[in-house]
């Protein structure tokens, strides 16, 4: 029978390649900027849009969704058609996928510095962008699944299974984690509160690492390692076990981000157990990749593609060993909230995702331009810059993280904190922050060398826009009866996708549903009340400024923490927190019991110039909070939206909210004036400024469990809480 002749579209591959490296450099540079800001808090002045709290999410989003995201599409759009022996199903959808994704990235680049954010890590983008992400992701999925449907190769190769799992799971994660009620065009509140929000967020956050930064790159590994080494994967049988066990186990591991928090103990235990089990499939996959090079190690010495692949897979092995170890309670107690975690993720991001991405760029570029790599030597230079950059990044952060964490926990022989001042512990690790910036600079330098090398390579050839290939069509789609069941499954894309969906849903449902159903998982505390309108505004400013990037609101039940911060945090304290703001990193101290700790004037001075109250602080100043007006226009819409997600404000309270907000702001301002703070450095302090709202929120934080606080006392409103809420108010546990 005659073979079909068809053409692969290399133009889309080229576009994704350029986007990968372009956004990569930008993402790395923003990372370097925030690293420098931790050394020199005054770096770049005090421009709100360039403040640390707003740029850090931009860095993480740029690196994850722009750099790694485009790299995923780059790998899929190159390997999938070649594995299916069919061009991508629709060039139009390919183009929409490309331009739509770039538009989403651009909207992130604009909105995040403007302080438009949900605060949920790696899901910071607000609801209109969430919808756009959903649409573009579905378009990518349709294009991919239809290509698989139209394939000329009966068996679906293991790389494609990982691509399918990526598509299905990211869709589920994104949809579940983004259930939010819009208050305005650019502001929404999640329907989940407190503990539930934390569990959903870290189920999402952890699996974003699993299914955005791991499974697609494993698919890439399964395609490019055999191609670059010119030999089949070490064990196909191992890859079958690898795939099913990895996707099944990964989805359960999220709660290891919440050990020792107010999350119910059984959920924490599940997270730990599944995280430890995860070593098996992860290392199975790593060994499968590395052992493919048996007898071909001589090639690794010469080929930069293989070098990047090998260092990438090795880093993957290290990170996936480290992850389970960090999930063990007493290791986590030391490492969590510290820079150790930052080192851990960068080992993965710089070498595993970075390594595989650069390997692809060096592999694909010469091939689609029908030429040879411009300079192997420069690629080797890049390899060493990247590797040493990662080493210089990761080791100081390990060192600094452990040092600082042990200092937080150190007691004197009298039983007092050895380092009661948080700033002492920061000063100690500042040299490590400097070394980290050196590491980052090395990595970026290497990436710039690659841009030159890849550009020269492209210039030396001509893009083969339509690459010809031929293969026989599949005559009979039904699987051969003599084949065993997994081989049959490999020729049935629909069943395969459905089974994948079932496997990943199990863990999510079992872990999440009980938290949602069983009330005893979140013991309610009667004295905990909703926020006043001014505090809601303060909280929204806290979110917009990204305070949660450096400050946690979760005191773990350790003596070292209760001594330093106060009473440990209870699940019932967060029932009105939409979203939760527990944070994941303590660049500054925990804030959960900050309420009432300092006078209002302390916060005023601290916001204007942190050095005035805390000499040596690396917190940036927030002078604009004293000059910008708070948002009074949309407070009614926000109160309504909060009621919709479950905060028991009385019906109609939104109409009284503004009066309450103004009254409380007046009261705080008057108090400041009476204490002699009519102005700060010539800036008049008036009641409509943002700083007043943030003071209200900070002073409210963590004080409700004392039981003697009625936040609405003295405010003009007649009826704040709904009758239903009062009737349903559970008894004190």
């Amino acid at each position, binding site marked *: *029978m005659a*073979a079909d002749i068809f053409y692969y579209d290399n133009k889309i591959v080229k576009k994704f390649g350029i986007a990968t490296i372009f956004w990569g450099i930008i993402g790395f540079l923003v990372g370097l900027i925030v690293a420098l800001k931790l050394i020199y808090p005054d770096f770049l002045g005090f421009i709100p849009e360039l403040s640390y709290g707003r740029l850090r999410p931009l860095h993480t989003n740029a690196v994850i969704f722009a750099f790694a995201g485009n790299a995923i599409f780059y790998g899929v759009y190159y*390997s999938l058609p*070649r*594995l299916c*022996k069919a061009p991508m199903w629709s060039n139009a959808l390919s183009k929409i996928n490309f331009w739509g994704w770039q538009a989403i990235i651009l909207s992130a680049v604009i909105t995040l510095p403007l302080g438009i954010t949900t605060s949920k890590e790696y899901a910071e983008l607000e609801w209109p962008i969430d919808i756009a992400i959903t649409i573009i992701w579905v378009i990518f999925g349709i294009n991919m699944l239809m290509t698989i449907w139209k394939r*000329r*190769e*009966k*068996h679906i*190769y293991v*790389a494609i299974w990982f691509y399918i799992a990526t598509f299905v799971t990211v869709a589920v994660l994104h949809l579940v984690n983004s259930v939010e009620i819009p208050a305005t065009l650019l502001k929404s509140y999640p329907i989940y509160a407190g503990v539930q929000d934390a569990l959903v967020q870290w189920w999402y956050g952890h699996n974003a690492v699993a299914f955005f930064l791991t499974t697609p790159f494993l698919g890439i590994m*399964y*395609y490019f390692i*055999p*191609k670059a080494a*010119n*030999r*089949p*994967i070490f*064990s*196909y*049988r191992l890859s*079958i*076990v690898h795939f*099913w*066990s990895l996707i*099944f186990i990964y989805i359960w591991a999220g709660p290891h981000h919440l050990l020792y928090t107010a999350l119910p103990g059984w959920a924490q235990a599940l997270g730990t157990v599944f995280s430890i089990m995860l070593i098996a499939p992860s290392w199975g996959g790593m060994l499968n990749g590395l052992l493919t090079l048996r007898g071909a190690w001589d090639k690794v010495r010469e080929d930069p593609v293989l070098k990047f692949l090998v260092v990438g897979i090795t880093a993957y092995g290290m990170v996936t060993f480290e992850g389970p170890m960090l999930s063990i309670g007493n290791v986590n107690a030391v490492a969590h909230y510290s820079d150790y975690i930052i080192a851990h993720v960068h080992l993965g991001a710089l070498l595993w995702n970075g390594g595989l991405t650069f390997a692809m760029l060096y592999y694909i570029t010469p091939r689609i331009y029908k030429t040879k790599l411009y300079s192997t030597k420069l690629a080797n230079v890049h390899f060493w810059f990247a590797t040493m950059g990662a080493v210089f990044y990761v080791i100081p952060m390990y060192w600094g993280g452990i040092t600082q964490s042990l200092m937080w926990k150190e007691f004197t022989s009298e039983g007092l904190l050895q380092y009661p001042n948080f700033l002492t512990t920061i000063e100690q690790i500042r040299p490590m922050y400097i070394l980290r910036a050196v590491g980052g600079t090395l990595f970026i330098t290497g990436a710039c060398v690659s841009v030159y090398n890849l550009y020269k390579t492209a210039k030396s050839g001509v893009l083969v826009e339509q690459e010809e*290939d*031929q*293969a*026989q069509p*599949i*005559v*009979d789609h039904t699987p*051969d009866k003599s084949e*065993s*069941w*997994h*081989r049959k499954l*490999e020729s049935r894309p629909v069943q395969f996708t459905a089974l994948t969906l079932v*496997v990943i849903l*199990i863990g999510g*449902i*079992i872990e999440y*549903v009980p938290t*949602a*159903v069983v009330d005893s998982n979140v013991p309610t505390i009667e004295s905990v009340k909703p926020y006043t309108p001014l505090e809601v505004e303060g909280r929204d400013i806290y979110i917009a400024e990204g305070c949660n990037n450096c400050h946690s609101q979760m005191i773990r039940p350790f003596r070292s923490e209760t001594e330093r911060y106060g009473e440990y945090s209870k699940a019932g304290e967060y029932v009105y927190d939409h979203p939760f703001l527990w944070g994941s990193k303590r660049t500054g101290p925990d804030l959960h019991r900050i309420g009432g700790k300092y006078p209002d004037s302390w916060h005023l001075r601290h916001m204007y110039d942190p050095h005035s109250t805390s000499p040596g602080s690396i917190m940036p100043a927030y002078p604009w909070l004293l000059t910008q007006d708070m948002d009074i226009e949309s407070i009614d819409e926000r109160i309504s939206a909060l009621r919709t997600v479950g905060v028991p404000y009385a019906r109609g309270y939104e109409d009284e909210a503004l009066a309450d907000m103004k009254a409380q702001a007046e009261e705080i301002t008057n108090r400041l004036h009476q204490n002699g703070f009519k102005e700060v450095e010539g800036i008049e302090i008036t009641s409509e400024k943002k700083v007043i709202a943030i003071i209200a929120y900070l002073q409210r934080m963590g004080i409700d469990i004392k039981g003697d606080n009625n936040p609405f006392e003295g405010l003009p409103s007649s009826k704040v809480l709904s009758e239903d809420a009062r009737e349903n108010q559970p008894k004190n546990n």
Partner: protein
Amino acid sequence: MYKEVLRSIEGIGIFPSIALILFLGFFIGLIIYLIKKGRAYFQDIARLPLEDYDDANNNHTT
């Protein structure tokens, strides 16, 4: 509201145990199956990324 929906499913408590047994069974079965089939059975599919158009018939059963 979603809480009510979930609560109305009877016997939801036993679901996790069923799921655990099912999937443990699935993995043990998978490993036994792969050991029984042997390495050679999958060798042709493992070569899949390396095939180019000179290869005669891409595992087709024509």
